[in-house]
C-alpha cells in the first residue's frame, strides 16, 4: 500500500487490475495491455502515472472511467467494487464523482455548438434541479481564472487550447468530482500556458480534497506536480511510491533508463555514454533473473518495485 500512515482512506483502490485485448476473427490474438495493477488514490493528492507509448497508461485511465471492462481484478470506489455496477443510475452516480479530461481539448467540444453546451449537458444529466445555471457556471469559470464574459457563449474555435482545457476543468468543478483522470492534459499546450493549468489543478485538488490521476509521458512535469508516482512499462507497474523517493532512488532498470533520458535544464547528457534505448530490455531481463521469485517488494513503506515476474 502506498502511504496509509497519514490515516487517509483511499478514494480509489485498484486490486490486481488487468486488461487483455483480443483481436482477429479466425485466429485470436491477445494483447496484454495492463497486468496486475494495484494502487490507491488518496484525497487531496496527485498521483502520476508515467510511461511511454504503448505502456498501458491510457488503458488504466479508461478502466477507471469505465470506458472499457477489466479482464481481471477489482476497482473500488469508496470501498465499493465498481467493476460490477451496471444499472444506469449507479453509473450516473459514479460519473457524478469521477470524470476525465483528455489530451486534445478541441475534440472534447463539438465545433458546431457554443461551449456552454458542455455545461448544459452537465446540468441536464446530473444537476436538473439547479435554477441559476448562468450564475453557477460563471462562478466555476472564475475559479479557473477565466473571464465568464469572454468565454461563455463562444464557439470552440474562438478560444485557445489552454482556455478550453480550463473550461473542462471548470466543468468537473461544477460536478464537484472526487476523482479526476487527466490523460496527457497538457501535452498539447505551450510551455507558457501549461504551468498555469498545472498550478490550478494542484490548487483545486488540495482545496477540495480531490484525487487526481495525472497520466503523462513527461517526467519533469510529473515530478513537479505529483505526490505519488507510478512508472509503467509494458502493462506492468514496475515502480511506485512517494514521488521524491522514486525520482531520487530509482531501482528498476526501466525507471533508471527513463530518468537518464530526461532533458533537464542544469544537467547535460553525458556525450560519451552509449545511450541506446532498446538495450534496456536486456537489463530488465537480467534484473528479473537476478531477483527471481521475489515479485513486487517494498524497499520502504512508500516505495515499491517489481523485482521479478513469474
Amino acid at each position: 500500500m502506498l502511504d496509509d500512515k497519514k490515516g487517509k482512506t483511499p478514494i480509489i483502490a485498484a486490486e490486481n487490475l488487468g486488461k487483455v485485448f483480443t483481436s482477429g476473427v479466425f485466429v485470436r490474438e491477445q494483447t496484454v495491455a495492463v497486468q496486475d495493477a494495484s494502487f490507491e488514490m488518496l484525497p487531496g493528492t496527485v498521483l502520476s502515472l508515467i510511461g511511454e507509448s504503448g505502456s498501458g497508461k491510457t488503458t488504466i485511465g479508461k478502466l477507471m472511467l469505465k470506458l472499457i471492462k477489466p479482464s481481471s481484478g477489482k476497482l473500488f470506489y469508496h470501498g465499493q467494487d465498481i467493476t460490477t455496477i451496471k444499472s444506469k443510475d449507479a453509473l450516473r452516480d459514479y460519473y457524478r464523482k469521477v470524470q476525465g479530461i483528455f489530451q486534445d481539448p478541441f475534440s472534447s467540444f463539438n465545433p458546431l455548438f457554443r461551449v456552454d453546451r458542455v455545461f448544459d449537458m452537465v446540468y441536464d444529466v446530473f444537476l436538473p434541479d439547479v435554477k441559476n445555471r448562468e450564475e453557477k457556471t460563471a462562478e466555476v469559470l472564475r475559479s479557473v481564472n477565466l473571464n465568464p464574459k469572454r468565454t461563455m457563449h463562444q464557439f470552440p474555435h474562438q478560444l485557445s487550447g489552454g482556455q478550453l482545457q480550463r473550461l473542462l476543468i471548470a466543468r468537473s468543478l461544477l460536478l464537484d468530482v472526487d476523482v479526476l483522470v487527466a490523460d496527457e492534459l497538457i501535452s498539447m499546450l505551450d510551455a507558457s500556458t501549461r504551468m498555469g493549468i498545472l498550478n490550478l489543478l494542484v490548487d483545486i485538488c488540495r482545496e477540495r480534497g480531490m484525487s487526481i490521476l495525472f497520466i503523462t509521458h513527461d517526467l519533469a512535469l510529473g515530478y513537479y506536480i505529483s505526490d505519488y508516482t507510478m512508472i509503467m512499462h509494458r502493462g506492468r507497474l514496475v515502480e511506485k511510491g512517494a514521488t521524491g523517493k522514486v525520482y531520487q532512488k530509482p531501482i528498476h532498470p526501466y525507471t533508471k533508463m527513463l530518468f537518464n533520458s530526461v532533458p533537464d535544464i542544469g544537467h547535460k547528457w553525458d556525450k560519451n555514454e552509449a545511450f541506446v534505448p532498446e538495450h534496456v530490455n536486456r537489463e530488465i531481463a537480467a534484473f528479473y533473473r537476478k531477483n527471481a521469485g521475489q515479485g513486487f517488494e517494498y524497499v520502504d513503506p512508500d516505495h515499491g518495485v517489481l523485482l521479478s515476474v513469474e
Partner: protein
Amino acid sequence: MEMETILDVQELKAYYRILKGDVKALDGVSFQVRRGEILGIAGESGCGKSTLANTLILRKKPLRHMAGTATLLGKDIMTMPEEEFQRLRFREISIIPQYALDALSPTKKIKTFITDMAHEHGIPTNAAFLGKVAERFAMVNLDKNVLNKYPIELSGGMKQRVIMIISTLMNPALVIADEITSALDVSSQRFAASMLMGLRDQKIIGSAIFITHDISILYQIADRLLIMYAGHAVETGPVDELINSPRHPYTQALINSLPKVGAQIKHQRLEGIKGTPPELLDIGPGCRFRFRCPYQTKVCAQTPPTEDISEDHSIACWHYEKIGSEGVG
C-alpha cells in the same frame, strides 16, 4: 573567434496570403548559421519557427517570400529558380520535416522508399550506395532487416532514425530538423537528439538548425539559441548564457516556466505567462510581446531594433538595459 558562416539570413519576411489579408508569420528575422554548429530555434506554437523552415526549403504557396535574403554557401536561395534549388536539396540543404514519421508510405518497404527517393534526386542506387545505407543503419543500431520491413512494423523511434538517415545520406552542409523529437517517447527523444549531434561530430552533416518548442532539449544539444515570438526574433546567444541569464522579458518568462531538476510545486511554484500571442493577420509595427509584457511602455508600439549586448548575444527589446538579467524571476 571568427567562424565561417554557411547560412546568412537577413531581414527575412514570409507571409501567408489568405482572403482576409496577409498573415505575417515571419516578419524580418535575421540570423547566421556557422559551420559545424547546431543552432536551436525555439518558440511557442505560432511563433513562425516552422514557417522559417518552410521558407528556407519547401517554398510552397500560400506561403510567400516577401523580402529579405537567405544566403547558403554564397548563393541567395530566396531568388534562386526552383530547378537550381532542386539540385541543392538533399545534397547541400536537407530537411527532416515535422510529422515525417507519417510520410513513409505504408505500402512501401523502407528499401523501396530509399531507392525511390534516390532516383527522384538523380542519385544512382548502386552497390556503393546501398553499402552506405547499410553502414549508416548499423551506426544507429538498426538491423539490416529493417530495409525489408514496412513502416508499420517499426516503432516511432525506429522510424525517426530511418528518416534521419535518409535525410542525411548525401552529407548535406545544412540540415533543418523541424520538431524531430516532439512525437517521440523520452528515451527515443534522447536518442534522436544525440544522433543529430553525433552526425555533426562525425562531420557527416555540416551544421544543423534544430527547431523545437522544447528548450530543455536544445539545452542538451544546441550551441546557440534563437528565441522567436510571433514572427520576430527576440533574442540570440550562446545556449548556456541564454538559459542561465536571459535578457529579453519573453525569454525570461519562458525559461521561468520550465520545470527544473528538483523543482516540485510544494517547494517552488513556477509561473506561466498570462495571455496569448497576438493575431498575426495584418499586424502593425511594434514589439509583439508588449501585450503580455510587464515592462511595456509607450515606446514599445515601435518595433525595437536588434542590438548586440555582447559579441555573440543580441536582443530586440527597448528596455533590456533597465530589466537586467534577473528580470521578474
